[in-house]
C-alpha cells in the first residue's frame, strides 16, 4: 500500500545496508506499514541476504511463505519474514525493530531455490513445508522427508499450487502404514519409545520417537502435522476474506483468538483500515484473557505430567474462572469469534466490566496461593530444575518464540518489539529468565499470568470511548501485509495477500509452536523418559496450530549421529555435552 512520504520508515537503515552489501541483487523494496518492508532479492543471493539479516542485524526468522504467483506475475515467490531487531553491537536505543520480508521469485521452469537452512537452521521446517506444498526444491536442504503432507498423500501433488487441484480433492490413500523414515541412532540396545499420536499426555496427535538407553533419552525424532487439515487452502477457496477470522479461531482451540487478531490485523494493515481505539483495547483484553487460561492450563498440565494431579486439579479449578470470564465477555468459552475485519463484535458494558474486575481480584489471590503451594510442594523443583535445557545458542539458531525463548535469557516479546493493539498504551513489564530449563519457563508463565491480570484491569479502567467497529472500507486486490500477535506460546504471525474476488489469494499463518518444535530435540537429549512429557509440555506445544517433529542437525548437513559412548557418558556425567555446537 501507499505511504505518504512524511511517515517515518522504521528499518530503512537495514534496507540500505543490504543495498550496500548486495548491490544489484536487491531488486525492489515495498513498504506495507511504517515498520514492514518487503525487499525483493535475486534468487541466488537469497541465502546470503537472509543470513546477513539473521546473524548480523539481529534478525529472527518469523515465517517463510511460499506463494504461487504465476497468475499474477508468472513466478513462484518465497517470502522470508524476519523480525530485524539490531545486533548486540548497536546501542539499545538505536536498535530499530521492523519486519523485513525478503522476497524472491522463482521461475516456474526452474522449480528450485537455494536452501537457506544450511546458513540459518531456523528455516529447516519452512523449506521442507514449501517443498511439500508447492513442489519447490530447496537445493542443499539436508532433510529429504516430508513434513506437512501425510504419508498416504500421493507424490507429485502439491496442494497449494493454484492449478493443482480442487480444495476438496481427496486422493485415495497410497499406503495403509506409516512410511516415514526415522533417523537411525546407533548404539547397542537402543530402544525406540513411541510417544503418540495417541498418548494420554499429549492431548493432541504427534508422534515422538525417543531413542532411549534405559531411562536416558539419547536422541529424539518426531513426526508431527497429524493435524494438517489444509486450512490455508480453505481460506483461499471456499471462504471469503471476512469469514477467515472464524477459521483463524480454529487454528488452535486455546490461542485461537491470538490467530484471529493476527489475521485481522494483517488484513486491516493491507487494506489500510484504522481500527477503532476501543476495539483495540477490547482485543487486548481478550488476548490477555486467553493468556490467562492458556497459562493456567500449562501450569496445570505441568503438574499433571509430573504426577502431581492435585496441582493439576487445583489449577484447573481456578482456571474455570478465566473460562467464565471468557464466556461472559465473548459468549463462548473458547473459540471467541469476536473479530471482524475492522473491529470487534461485542462491546464491554458495565456488567461485564464489574464482574470481570471482581474475578480478576479472585484469580490474583487464588493463583498466588496456588503458585506458592506449587513451589512449596516437595520435589517439584527437583523435577523441573535443569530439565530440558534450551541453550541460548540453540535458541538463537532456531528462533523459538514466547516463554520458550524467554526462559533462555532472551527478553523478546512481540508486544514490546512490535507493539500492536493497546500494548503500547497500557503499562506492563516483560518477564524473562535465564534458567534455560523447564522451571524457568514455568515461572515465566506464572509471572506473565499476573501481568496479564494487570493488563486486563488497566485496559478495563482506561478503555477509550467510541465505536468498536469500522465499516465501509474498500477491498484492494493483491494487497498484502503481516499481522502478528504475541500469543501465550509466543509470536503468531500471519502473512495475508488478498485476491481479486473478495477472497484471499494466499494466507500463510504460522503458529508460535512451529518455531518451538525444531529445538525441542535439543531439549530432550540427555534427559530421562520421565521428563519427556514435561519437556514437551514446557514449550506448551500446540500441535494443531503447528499442524506438525523431525529435526536434522542442519549445521552438520546430515542427520547427525553422536557417538553412543559419548552420549552415555554425557547422560551420566551431565557435562561437556557432545551435542553442543
Amino acid at each position, binding site marked *: 500500500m501507499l505511504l505518504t512520504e512524511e511517515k517515518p520508515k522504521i528499518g530503512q537503515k537495514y534496507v540500505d545496508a543490504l543495498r550496500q552489501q548486495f548491490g544489484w541483487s536487491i531488486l525492489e523494496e515495498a513498504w506495507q506499514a511504517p515498520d514492514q518492508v518487503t525487499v525483493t532479492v535475486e534468487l541466488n543471493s537469497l541465502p546470503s541476504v537472509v543470513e546477513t539479516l539473521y546473524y548480523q542485524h539481529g534478525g529472527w526468522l518469523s515465517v517463510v511463505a511460499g506463494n504461487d504467483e504465476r497468475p499474477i506475475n508468472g513466478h513462484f515467490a518465497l517470502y522470508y519474514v524476519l523480525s530485524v531487531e539490531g545486533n548486540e553491537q548497536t546501542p539499545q536505543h538505536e536498535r530499530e525493530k521492523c519486519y523485513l520480508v525478503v522476497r524472491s521469485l522463482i521461475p516456474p521452469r526452474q522449480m528450485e531455490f537455494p536452501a537457506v537452512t544450511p546458513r540459518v537452521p531456523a528455516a529447516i521446517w519452512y523449506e521442507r513445508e514449501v517443498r511439500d506444498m508447492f513442489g519447490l526444491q530447496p537445493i542443499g536442504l539436508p532433510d529429504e522427508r516430508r513434513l506437512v503432507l501425510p504419508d498416504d498423500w500421493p507424490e507429485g501433488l502439491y496442494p497449494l499450487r493454484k492449478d493443482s487441484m480442487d480444495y476438496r480433492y481427496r486422493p485415495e490413500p497410497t499406503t495403509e502404514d506409516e512410511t516415514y523414515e526415522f533417523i537411525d541412532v546407533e548404539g547397542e540396545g537402543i530402544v525406540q519409545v513411541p510417544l503418540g499420536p495417541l498418548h494420554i499426555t499429549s492431548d493432541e496427535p504427534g508422534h515422538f520417537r525417543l531413542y532411549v538407553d534405559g531411562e536416558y533419552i539419547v536422541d529424539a525424532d518426531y513426526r508431527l502435522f497429524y493435524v494438517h487439515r489444509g486450512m490455508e487452502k480453505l481460506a483461499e477457496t471456499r*471462504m471469503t476474506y471476512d469469514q477467515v477470522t472464524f477459521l483463524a479461531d480454529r487454528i488452535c482451540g486455546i490461542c485461537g483468538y491470538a490467530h484471529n487478531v493476527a489475521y485481522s490485523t494483517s488484513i486491516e494493515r493491507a487494506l489500510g483500515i484504522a481500527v477503532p481505539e476501543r476495539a483495540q483495547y477490547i482485543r487486548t483484553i481478550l488476548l490477555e484473557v486467553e493468556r490467562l487460561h492458556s497459562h493456567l492450563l500449562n501450569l496445570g498440565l505441568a503438574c499433571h505430567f509430573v504426577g502431581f494431579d492435585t496441582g493439576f486439579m487445583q489449577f484447573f479449578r481456578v482456571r474455570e474462572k478465566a473460562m467464565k470470564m471468557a464466556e461472559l465477555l465473548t459468549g463462548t468459552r473458547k473459540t471467541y*469469534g469476536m473479530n471482524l475485519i475492522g473491529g470487534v463484535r461485542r462491546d464491554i458494558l458495565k456488567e461485564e466490566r464489574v464482574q470481570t474486575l471482581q474475578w480478576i481480584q479472585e484469580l490474583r489471590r487464588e493463583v498466588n*496461593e496456588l503458585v506458592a503451594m506449587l513451589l512449596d510442594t*516437595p520435589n517439584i523443583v527437583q523435577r523441573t530444575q535443569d530439565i530440558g535445557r534450551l541453550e541460548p545458542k540453540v535458541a538463537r539458531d532456531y528462533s523459538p518464540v514466547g516463554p520458550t525463548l524467554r526462559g533462555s535469557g532472551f527478553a523478546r516479546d512481540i508486544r514490546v518489539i512490535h507493539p500492536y493493539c493497546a500494548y503500547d498504551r497500557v503499562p506492563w513489564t516483560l518477564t524473562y529468565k535465564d534458567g534455560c530449563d523447564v522451571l524457568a519457563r514455568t515461572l515465566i508463565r506464572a509471572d506473565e499470568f499476573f501481568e496479564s491480570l494487570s493488563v486486563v484491569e488497566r485496559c478495563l479502567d482506561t478503555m477509550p470511548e467510541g465505536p468498536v467497529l469500522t465499516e465501509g472500507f474498500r477491498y484492494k486486490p493483491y494487497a498484502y501485509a503481516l499481522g502478528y500477535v504475541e500469543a501465550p506460546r509466543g509470536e503468531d504471525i500471519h502473512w495475508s495477500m488478498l485476491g481479486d474476488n473478495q477472497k484471499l489469494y494466499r494466507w500463510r499463518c504460522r503458529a508460535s509452536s512451529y518455531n518451538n518444535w525444531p529445538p525441542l530435540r535439543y531439549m530432550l537429549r540427555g534427559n530421562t523418559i520421565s521428563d519427556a512429557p514435561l519437556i514437551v509440555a514446557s514449550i506448551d506445544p500446540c500441535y494443531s496450530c503447528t499442524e506438525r517433529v523431525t529435526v536434522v542437525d542442519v549445521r552438520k548437513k546430515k542427520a547427525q549421529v553422536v557417538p553412543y559412548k559419548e552420549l552415555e557418558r554425557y547422560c551420566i556425567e551431565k557435562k561437556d555435552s557432545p551435542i553442543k555446537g
Partner: protein
Amino acid sequence: MLKLIREVLKVGQATLPYPFAPVELAPGFRGKPEYDPQQCIACAVCTIACPPNALTMHTDLEQGVRTWSLFYGRCIFCARCEEVCPTGAIRLGHDFELASFSREDLTVRAEFRLAACNLCGAYFASAKELEHVLALLDQAGLPPEDAADRKALLRACPECRRKTDLPRVKPLIQEAFNGRV
C-alpha cells in the same frame, strides 16, 4: 504440603451439581441456534455468511421449492447467522444439550415456496422474501406511485426486470462509455 492442605480445606467441594441442577450461563452465551421458521424469509443471507456451511439452502427451480437446512453437527456457534438475519428468525439460545444418537436428529429443515415471475412465470425468489420486501417498502414510506412501480418491478424475476429496465438504463450506459472514450 501444608499450604496445599490449607487451600484444600478452605475451598471445600467445588463441584457443580449439574446435571441435577442447571448450570449458570453468561447472558450472552452462544448456545444452540434457535430457528423460527415463521419469521424466516429464506433470503439465504445466513447461508452465505455461515463460515462452516452448517446452514445450507437448496433451491429447486423446477418444483418452486427452497429448502433451508441447519446441521447442528457442523455449527460452530459463531452467531454470524444471528448477526446478519434481517428478520431475527435465528437467534442463539442458551441450550447446549445437543447430544444425539443420529445425524438426522441434529438437522432442522424448512421448506419454502418460491414466487413465480409475474412476467415469464419462472420461479425466482422465495415467496416470503418477496412478501417481506414488499412490506418493507411500505414501511419505508415511499410516495405511493413510486412504491407501486417498484412493487411491480419486484414481482418480476431479475431477467425480466433487466429487460424491463433496459430502456431506462440504456442512455445512462451510453453516456458512461462516451465519457470514457
